[in-house]
């Protein structure tokens, strides 16, 4: 027998988007948050460099410039109506965060301090603009802490360490979710008028990733299994500066403060690729440039990495070469970038103050995900129909403000702007909608049965080995650069891995804290999402933003100025059928042009 709970608004996931939504929904309706982690463990907390808004605190800026940069950064695949909401809303959202306690760094006048970031420009001069509001290099940590603090202040109801395993979606309507209380293994039914998915990303399908172990795409995988579509799954961001071999992120703020890339010949190679913005070009371009340097033998000692150089003595030389009067010293860097300097010291044994740091591109962020309209309502198809009572915001969602490549800092902007918007919309809806009945005796049974079947698995394969094989495969064939042959190989191989997954062994047959079982369930989610990612990538025969095809190197607006909608129309033990549809991009003011920096 499952335990039963009932709320007006239910939020699944307690990162930035989920907490923001809960904070706003709870102002007027009965709201609960369920999360498989304690809220403060959520991955928003690891965001480092900043959150952009055109406050203009240090130099001229306009939200329209931010919007254009976002659209251009996204290689014109962003829905421009959503981008306007994002960038105009960013200003109020960030001021709100300050008002509720966020300890931003300050300018000499006492205003919120801002720094440069990749792809954020003064649209007149085309030079980098100071737009990223920051709290040292732990901006995400401060956002997560501040939102959690305010949820406590407002007495939001939390169910910590509950993992969603099924959603109550039938006939285009969502009535809540089924979750497992990890401590006891008990099943709980959360019955709600409005439900929001804010479960974050799924970077754990790659080996070299900045993502947490918990980022396994539980939300989008569940959507997929309900035969609902996922949007733009081929667009995954590889951040150029991951710690070599480990993938831990070193913030773009390092380059915002003056750091540059160096290849094996000691050359500042970004000048060759993007002569104006150089090392502050958007992430997809930097990652591709690194890939090319390595492929052509110009990695460090011919290996698969390059350097990120943020030695103060060198930064000052680069400033001088660029005609920038600014000069810095080691103390300045230690104040502005304390965490990432420590990461290099702890995990590489390299001191960035005296030595350049080995880095390589790292799987970082899903531009695609659960499709929504600009009110965060989840779409049921590529024609724009919605699932009643279901919302999504944050990395899990695709609204789409990031298009084919997200600009640095815009993930945090997305969380606060659309998290807030979603919370308000859910509350509005819940105030007028009636609670639809569910069968309290049976609604949890499918999810519970699936989990129990998995628990009893006594095959010969280990989930850990399958996960590792998936990650190596995805790094190699569904990474920074893709080909038709590689993608086809990946799809076949993922199907083989799914067959192996059907033959796994679960050591832990118990109920209390059965992390063996939950990790296997998460692997199942990753396998489904990996397949959809590869199939979506194979379907897009062009190169745009984070999706680069060696066999189709140009952007093809005539054919592909549209979003991919992938639906798993049939899921059997043998093979899953994936259907692709396309939805036109919303274009308002900004006509697609060639992307140069």
């Amino acid at each position, binding site marked *: 027998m499952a335990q039963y709970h009932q709320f007006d608004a239910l939020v699944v996931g307690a990162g930035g988007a989920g907490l923001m939504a809960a904070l706003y929904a709870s102002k007027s309706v009965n709201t609960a948050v369920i999360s498989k982690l304690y809220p403060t463990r959520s991955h928003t907390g690891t965001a480092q460099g900043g959150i952009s808004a055109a406050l203009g605190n240090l130099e001229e800026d306009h939200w329209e410039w931010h919007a254009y940069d976002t659209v251009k950064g996204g290689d014109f695949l962003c829905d421009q109506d959503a981008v306007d909401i994002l960038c105009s809303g960013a200003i109020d959202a960030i001021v709100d965060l300050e008002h509720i306690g966020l*300890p931003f760094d300050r300018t000499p006048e006492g205003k919120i301090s801002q720094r440069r970031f990749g792809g954020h420009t003064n649209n007149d001069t085309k030079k980098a603009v100071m737009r990223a509001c920051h709290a040292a290099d732990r901006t995400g940590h401060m956002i997560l802490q501040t939102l959690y603090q305010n949820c406590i202040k407002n007495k939001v109801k939390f169910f910590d360490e509950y993992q969603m395993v099924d959603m109550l979606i039938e006939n285009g309507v969502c009535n809540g979710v089924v979750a497992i209380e990890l401590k006891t293994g008990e099943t709980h039914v959360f019955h709600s008028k409005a439900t929001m998915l804010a479960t974050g990303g799924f970077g754990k399908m790659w080996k070299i990733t900045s993502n947490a172990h918990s980022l396994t795409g539980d939300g989008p995988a569940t959507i997929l299994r309900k035969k609902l579509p996922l949007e733009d799954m081929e667009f995954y961001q590889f951040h150029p500066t991951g710690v070599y071999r480990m993938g831990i992120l070193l913030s773009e703020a390092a380059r915002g403060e003056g750091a540059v890339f160096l290849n094996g010949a000691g050359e500042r190679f970004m000048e060759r690729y993007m002569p104006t913005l150089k090392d502050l070009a958007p992430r997809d371009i930097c990652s591709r440039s690194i890939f090319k340097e390595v492929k052509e033998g110009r990695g460090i000692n011919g290996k698969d990495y390059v350097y990120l150089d943020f030695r103060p003595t060198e930064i000052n030389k680069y400033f001088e070469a660029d005609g920038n009067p600014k000069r810095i010293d080691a103390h300045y860097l230690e104040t502005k970038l304390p965490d990432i300097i420590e990461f290099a010291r702890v995990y590489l044994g390299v001191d960035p103050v005296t030595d350049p740091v080995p880095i390589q591109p790292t799987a970082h962020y899903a531009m695609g995900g659960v499709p929504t309209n600009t009110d965060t309502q989840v779409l049921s198809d590529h024609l724009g129909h919605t699932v009643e009572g279901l919302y999504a915001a944050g990395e899990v969602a695709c609204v789409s403000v990031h298009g084919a490549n997200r600009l640095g800092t815009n993930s945090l902007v997305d969380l606060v702007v659309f998290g807030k918007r979603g919370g308000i919309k859910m509350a509005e809806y819940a105030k007028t909608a009636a609670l639809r009945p569910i069968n309290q005796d049976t609604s949890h049974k499918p999810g519970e049965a699936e989990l129990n079947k998995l628990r009893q698995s006594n095959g010969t394969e280990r989930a850990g080995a399958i996960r590792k094989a998936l990650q190596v495969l995805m790094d190699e064939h569904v990474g920074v650069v893709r080909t038709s042959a590689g993608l086809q190989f990946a799809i076949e191989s993922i199907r083989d891995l799914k067959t192996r997954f059907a033959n796994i062994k679960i050591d832990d047959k118990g109920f209390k*804290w059965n992390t063996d079982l939950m990790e296997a369930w998460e692997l199942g989610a990753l396998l489904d999402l990996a397949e959809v990612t590869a199939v979506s990538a194979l379907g897009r025969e062009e190169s745009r933003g984070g999706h680069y095809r060696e066999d189709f190197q140009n952007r093809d607006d005539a054919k592909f100025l549209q979003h991919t909608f992938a639906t798993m129309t049939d899921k059997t033990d043998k093979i899953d059928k994936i259907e692709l549809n396309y939805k036109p991009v919303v274009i308002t003011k900004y006509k697609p042009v060639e992307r140069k920096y």
Partner: protein
Amino acid sequence: MKLHLKIKRFNPEIDKKPYWGEYDIEVDEMDRVLDALQEVKWTVDGTLALRRSCAHGICGSDAMRINGRNRLACKCLIKDEIKNGQITVEPILGLKVQKDMIVDMEPFFAHYRSVLPFLVNKDPLPENGRERLQTIADRERFDDTTKCILCACCTTSCPSFWARGEYVGPAAIVQAHRFIFDSRDQAAQERLEVLSEVDGVWRCRTVFNCTDACPRGIEVTKAIGEVKAALRTGIIA
């Protein structure tokens, strides 16, 4: 390299009392202790239970007692911890073990909630619709305690907390400090009242275990001292 990992195990559904599980695995010396634990879980015994998420010292999930000292398993490397080919891992002390490395965090978060861990400011917001102003020096005053990730390394290394779980503990005092010394906040007196009670700040005996344990390098004992001074003098500076 070879590693002999000794892990204190306890599964409430099977075991009457904890025991030492011993595992020999192959690791890279630059791997994290967390990687070694995952290797055991993924290749030897799937029943091993631990919390983990970001794996680089920010989310605060994997606080453990590693070779007798509180550490985040993801923030210490095998090469720095291995002694005679061995590393010992136990759950943190002072909170009830639920399974293997997983302890009941609820008492810890209850202490956290008791100190009003949120900004209180009842003044009207700036009329221009923009941020409140704060000087660089005022912001710097409480910078150190903003780094706290609520991992519980400090609180569960404190002998006063081991002796009496009602003691609010270093982490909650760090959180209180973060607001008491924020020039924008107006609830310092309420927090100081909580911390002047019998299970408040005076249970601290200045042992410095907390400062040693903090994976974020916060000067925890110093922060506690500043709260004590504020209580003693009535001056918040």
